[in-house]
């Protein structure tokens, strides 16, 4: 019963914050609502007994990604966006409908013929006996998923190099005259 209550509180907060992320005009406000949203998702993971994923969510998402967003928003010093008319084209409506229908399809499949709760083997009792969720996830991660784990480190290395190269300042000998006026980022930052 308590579990259901916690779920409903977190789900309400997540819904509210997701709408506010999209709807607020100022990007800083959106980023703050995104932090609250991600924390609530972490709480939802904890409520689902996925403690390792909850910790990673707080550390990586709320701790690193949103801070990165904040840095860029404040570095670029954007003014609040003027909400012009929300024009939606036909393909976009199609994408939205396909999304909702797809989720409903997955839900119907899972509710009707899907998981019975007995076919996995990693029941809460087994996980508890093995030493907790983090231990069990670690055992799976470092045995069956060792190779993807190592590939993830290569992906991160590539992302580091790519972001440094992309965001690097151009050589001053660039010969394009069209962009000369818009170089100054912020006062003194560059």
């Amino acid at each position, binding site marked *: 019963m308590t579990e259901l209550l916690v*779920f409903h509180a977190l789900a309400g907060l997540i819904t509210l914050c997701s709408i506010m992320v999209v709807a607020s005009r100022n990007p800083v406000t959106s980023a703050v609502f995104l932090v609250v949203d991600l924390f609530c998702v972490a709480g939802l993971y904890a409520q689902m007994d996925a403690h390792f994923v909850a910790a990673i969510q707080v550390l990586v998402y709320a701790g690193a990604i949103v801070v990165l967003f904040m840095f860029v928003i404040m570095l670029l010093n954007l003014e609040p966006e003027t909400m012009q008319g929300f024009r939606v084209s036909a393909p976009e409506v199609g994408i939205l409908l396909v999304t909702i229908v797809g989720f409903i399809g997955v*839900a119907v499949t899972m*509710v009707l013929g899907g998981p019975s709760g007995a076919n996995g083997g990693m029941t809460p009792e087994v996980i508890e006996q093995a030493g907790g969720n983090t231990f069990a*996830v670690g055992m799976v*991660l470092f045995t069956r998923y060792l190779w*993807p784990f190592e590939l*993830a480190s290569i992906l991160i290395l590539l992302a580091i190099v790519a*972001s440094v190269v992309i965001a690097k300042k151009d050589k001053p000998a660039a010969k394009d005259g069209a962009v000369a006026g818009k170089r100054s980022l912020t006062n003194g930052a560059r």
Partner: protein
Amino acid sequence: MVPVDMYLVLATVMFTCGIVGIMARRNLIMVLMSIELMLNAVNIVFVAASRAVNNLDGQIMVFFIITVAACEAAVGLAMVIALYRKYGRIDTNFLRMLRG
């Protein structure tokens, strides 16, 4: 135990918010934030399904999705900075050079 379809309803709402954000907002940073929302919605489905079938593979998948999301955010924001430095604005109405 909360039934799994409630998690799916929540994820649908969150994912739809992300898609509406991508369609409605003209700021490139807002588009990236909406992508993060959508990835989180998918993560919720993964963990809920992982618990429903008593299998930890879903949580491993969430781990990898978070890794990829971090890389995507870093590279995407680097591209935002490069675009801002080159053109002075990050408006998706303005940045349509690749649209043919």
